[in-house]
């Protein structure tokens, strides 16, 4: 693949390098950098890549947008880019145009339910909605007797239970009590809450994979700089083997996430077992890698990596937090295990080999 294949991701990485450098962001006294960054992302169509130009977006491919998410992970980005992208994508499934500004998506927990009332209003609770208090709108997956629907809801119409994730980013509960949506549309055939969860799984997997790549690069660099017992710590076999294990986790996450992104990019049927395997396996394996990988990165960095001043925590805490969004690894492992059981032992290999 030539450079030209990654124009969108390259543009994103350049903007992030200029305006969201993790070290600069980590020592910033206030949030002034966020405004400039968001404006640049919006101006370049990076907040709504999956929305057609007619609906206010950039009309980029799913594959291009997925690469932006990996880049966002590499920078431990702390603005609602992934959330706005997902919200725009969800609205587009209902042929609803995206408004300007930041958005978030709900529900993000597979067991949460927002339902349609007889009068056309929406009720329900959604836990753990990322960046909810920074969003101007929510894209909501609504369950109704006639199947899934998609709604655009004004943020100011929704009550919030404010909380934060591991990295201190907004992670709010939403309470919808007979909220009248701005727009409401039927979801396409075969599209339901599971489809939204699978898409969310792949998005978080890519972000985790990106964060892990940076953890590896930074940890290798640190090991080559730090001296102990009169040697660079990179020369100790025990440290080398820990870093080799970290590389393995980074590799597994990258392979699982990019494979799932590739699968969703080629127009999947959402209820297909192969799509299900790819998306859930990515989330399960990336979540596992986030745990093991973060531990090793911290172990090699020692005390300095545990300070607020050092940037390592920006990557580790986000990667660890993302494990829980859109269903954590335990949730999906049970669901995947149940599907495997229902298919039967003799149909397990054919599923694995089909990818």
């Amino acid at each position, binding site marked *: 693949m030539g450079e030209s294949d990654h124009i969108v991701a390259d543009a994103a990485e350049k903007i992030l390098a200029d305006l969201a450098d993790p070290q600069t962001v980590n020592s910033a006294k206030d949030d002034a950098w966020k405004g400039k960054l968001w404006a640049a992302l919006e101006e370049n169509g990076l907040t709504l890549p999956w929305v057609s130009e007619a609906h206010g977006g950039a009309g980029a491919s799913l594959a291009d947008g997925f690469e932006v998410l990996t880049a966002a992970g590499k920078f431990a980005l702390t603005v609602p880019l992934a959330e706005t992208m997902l919200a725009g994508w969800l609205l587009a499934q209902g042929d609803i145009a995206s408004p300007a500004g930041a958005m978030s998506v709900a529900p993000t927990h597979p067991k949460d339910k927002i339902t349609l009332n007889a009068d056309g209003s929406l009720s329900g609770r959604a836990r753990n909605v990322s960046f909810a208090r920074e969003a101007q709108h929510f894209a909501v997956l609504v369950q109704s007797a006639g199947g899934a629907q998609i709604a655009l809801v004004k943020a100011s119409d929704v009550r919030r239970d404010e909380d934060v994730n591991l990295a201190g980013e907004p992670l709010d509960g939403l309470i919808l009590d007979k909220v009248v949506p701005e727009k409401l549309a039927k979801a396409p055939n075969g599209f339901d809450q599971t489809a939204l969860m699978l898409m969310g799984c792949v998005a978080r997997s890519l972000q985790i994979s990106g964060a892990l790549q940076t953890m590896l690069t930074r940890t290798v660099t640190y090991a080559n700089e730090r001296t102990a017992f009169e040697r660079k710590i990179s020369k100790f076999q025990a*440290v080398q083997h820990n870093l080799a294990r970290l590389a393995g986790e980074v590799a597994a996450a990258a392979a699982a996430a990019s494979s799932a992104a590739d699968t969703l990019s080629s127009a999947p049927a959402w209820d297909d077992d192969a799509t299900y395997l790819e998306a859930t396996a990515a989330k399960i394996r990336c979540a596992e890698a986030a745990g093991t990988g973060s531990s090793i990165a911290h172990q090699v960095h020692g005390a300095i990596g545990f300070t607020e001043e050092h940037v390592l925590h920006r990557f580790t805490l986000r990667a660890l937090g993302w494990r829980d969004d859109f269903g954590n690894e335990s949730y999906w492992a049970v669901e995947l295990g149940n599907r495997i059981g229902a298919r039967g032992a003799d149909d397990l290999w054919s599923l694995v080999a089909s990818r």
Partner: protein
Amino acid sequence: MSSALTFDPIRLPETCQILRREARAFLAEEIARGTFDPNNPRRAEESSHAQEFAKRVAAKGWIGMTWPKKYGGRERSFLERFVLTEEFRVANAPTRVYFTADRQSGPTIIRYGTEKIKQDILPRIVKGEISFCIGMSEPGSGSDLFAAKTRATKVDGGYLINGTKIWTSNAHQSDYMIGLFRTSQPTKENRRHGLTNFVVDMKTKGISCNQIRQMSGQREFNEVVFQDAFIPDDYVLGEIDGAWKQATTELSYERSGPERFLETYYVLTELVRALGPKPDTRAAEGVGRLVAQLHTLRRMSVSVAGMLEAGKEPVVEASIVKDIGTLWEQDLPSRVRTLSAFIEQEPGNQLPLAKSVSYATKVAPKLTIQGGTTEVLRGIIARGLGLR
């Protein structure tokens, strides 16, 4: 060196899926005629029909399938070979006669052998007539290959070999060995200098094999003793004293294939069978994680096969696949064992599971030793990361 790792989402092309269907049909036929028992990996490995099986695999054009046509190969892709390897492995097919020659020995001969050797040996591998073993480890050198002491002394027209190789899998039933022998002493500057690869005809006078029983009950291991065994000049592989320059790409093929995570796969199948259509939550989670990990490993392995096919040398990526792949397949029997703790007693559904877990548990320790230990692999990965 950088720490950037590449695992592009390579997909197997349609030709591979056609080949997969052919392979499954072929294997089903072999099972039906009693060549091997897919539900008994132990007996499949020891199948007395392995030689005839190899000939029928050969007749399909599936041995040496990636090799040049002039040596009997089919010039098919490494992705196609990947598909056959995984289908044969999952079916527990008795591939031992030709697997080593197909994966390693043949490609090494193609790259470093004299034309005479290529013409003589490669077509016979392709026909499933001859088998290879690999003579590297010695009583005093295992992972430290370059400490090998078995001598090859120059004489008129060839070399005389003296010394002992050990842990040589299947030497007692192999026709040839690719052996690593000392032709000079190492130099101060380069301790890897002085070793040369040879093709050894195992029927040569002065070679004797003593079988060594393994803890798993298998009897693949051998001690191979050389006493003035003569090897003609034509049977040298590559540069004299320069074996250390060979084999980086070959190692990638050897390390990243599906056989590096599917060795104990059968216990997972048997677990799913014994759990039935509605596993309890704990077992479902365990199975889900195992399948997610297996899927990821396989996608990594396909990705490396795609890079190799494209002419790249993904040494670090291949080592990573073997590192985490062999640890996974090693751990699998114990994870399956614990996940089966709550299975209800139903006649017939547990015996195959218990038997396969028992066998896999006994095989497991070797998986992270053969073909490059975990420790060696991590050293290679660390070097790729720029740490050494």
